[in-house]
């Protein structure tokens, strides 16, 4: 099938275009609520990519944690503060130039990195790849210590947030 695109490639291209478009909307749109909605759509589209890569669990966790919880809290705060369309702070020509340079450099780095990357293994992934059981087994055997340390880190963050809130109270 040289020359002709398969169904999955066409689907990938459409999804990729939509993802880039909604990611751009997040950055470019002046209204914070619209940006947040575009962020949700970006995250859901990324979840579809994980699905296409057989990583069902990662896909669904992406939706639950990021789209379903974190951005809802963003929106909640935006609503409470009743933010309207913002005029973007551009911050002078020097900052714009530096940001453009940084962006171009990052893009170059990504492209050159992709060029050097090793070709993906020809054989497909094994059965059970991306399934919850396989992922959980790795997580709770080989990566147990990092996993527990991460949860400790989150606990510290929660305790810190509660301490800050208490201090503000009285």
């Amino acid at each position, binding site marked *: 099938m040289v020359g002709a695109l398969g169904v999955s490639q066409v689907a990938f291209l459409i999804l990729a275009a939509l993802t880039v478009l909604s990611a751009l909307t997040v950055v470019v749109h002046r209204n914070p609520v619209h940006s947040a909605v575009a962020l949700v759509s970006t995250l859901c589209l990324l979840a579809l990519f994980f699905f296409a890569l057989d990583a069902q669990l990662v896909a669904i966790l992406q939706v639950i944690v990021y789209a379903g919880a974190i951005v809802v809290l963003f929106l909640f705060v935006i*609503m409470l503060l009743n933010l309207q369309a913002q005029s973007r702070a551009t911050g002078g020509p020097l900052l714009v130039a530096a940001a453009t340079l940084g962006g171009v450099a990052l893009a170059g780095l990504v492209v050159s990195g992709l060029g050097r990357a090793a070709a993906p293994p020809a054989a497909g992934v094994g059965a059970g790849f991306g399934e919850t059981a396989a992922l959980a087994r790795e997580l709770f055997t080989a990566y147990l210590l990092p996993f527990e340390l991460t949860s400790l880190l989150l606990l510290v963050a929660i305790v810190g947030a509660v301490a800050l809130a208490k201090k503000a109270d009285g």
Partner: protein
Amino acid sequence: MAVDVAIAAAKALFIVLLVVQVMGLGVFFERKVSALIQDRIGANRAAIFGFAGLGLVNTLVADPIKFLLKEDVVPASSDRLLHSLAPILSLVPVLVTFAVVPFGDVLEVGGRVVNLQAAELSIGILYVLAMVSLGVYGVVLAGWASNSRWSLLGGIRGSAQMISYEIAMGLALIGIVLTYNTLDLQEMARAQGTLLWGWLPAWGILYQPIGFLIFMTAGIAESKRIPFDLPESESELVSGYFTEYSGPKHLMFMMSDFVEVVLVAALVTTLFFGGWQIPWLYRDGFHFPFGGAVALPSLAVAVLQVTSFALKLVFFTWLQIVIRWTLPRFRYDQLMRLGWQGLLPLALANVVVSALLIVLWSGRSA
């Protein structure tokens, strides 16, 4: 290939039609059961082209037609795009959740074994949680985009409430996942076909009675109905987050409310009451524990199972509507206290106790 696509489409169509039918029955209960509870007659006099002979059925037909024909008023100061998007974001996540709800075991037709579940996802229960958490956006955006204070207050209340009760709901589901050792709803429904002591069907309610209470409570809170209808609370906020909606969009919000009721009924049925199971009915017919067996063809078994699932669905829809017309509305602080200080610790304790019991009794390990 074409046959597979046709089967998948047929299954998806079937579950959606089933849900819509049960939803219609839900509206029927809402009208007539509430009338019975309040000692009145209830809606009975809509006439379609002068014909009023069918009583309430006329009303059930006339209601959606009225909504569809009404003007769709969009407030001048609203955010037009998000105002239109909100009802869609409210209805779609609830409807697509039914994709993973099994409505029967298997059906053998023409040498094929069809799994009676629209989408076979090994992570089914997480998919349910993901879609439920996306449902918040409809409420939040409706509240914000309407640019009205009532809507905004309703939206803020709604999002805070839904986020709070999602946590208890998720923890109640962990108990169920621990019990069945799978995330697939069809596997869970099948596991409930085994017998305890040789005669008692091992339905989820026997293993997770507290999980059931937490899940049911959190589910009613997620569907934002009395006693948890503070996002709407018509006596103070007009109609809460969908105050500024009329016509078809208002219909979509009302529909998503009722579909949520059916969804809670479907999940309670599948997780705690055997799903499509009928006691002692297996793929080849009945095997009674007291002796005796009735052999049945695959089609008859499938029809019985789907009927059983539908009847359980209707029962739990009815139960939620009776609860809705029996209890008064909570105050907001009571709502938050119940969620965070009542259900959350209870659900956490339930997870710990369930895990301990499973390890000690069944000796299951990794």
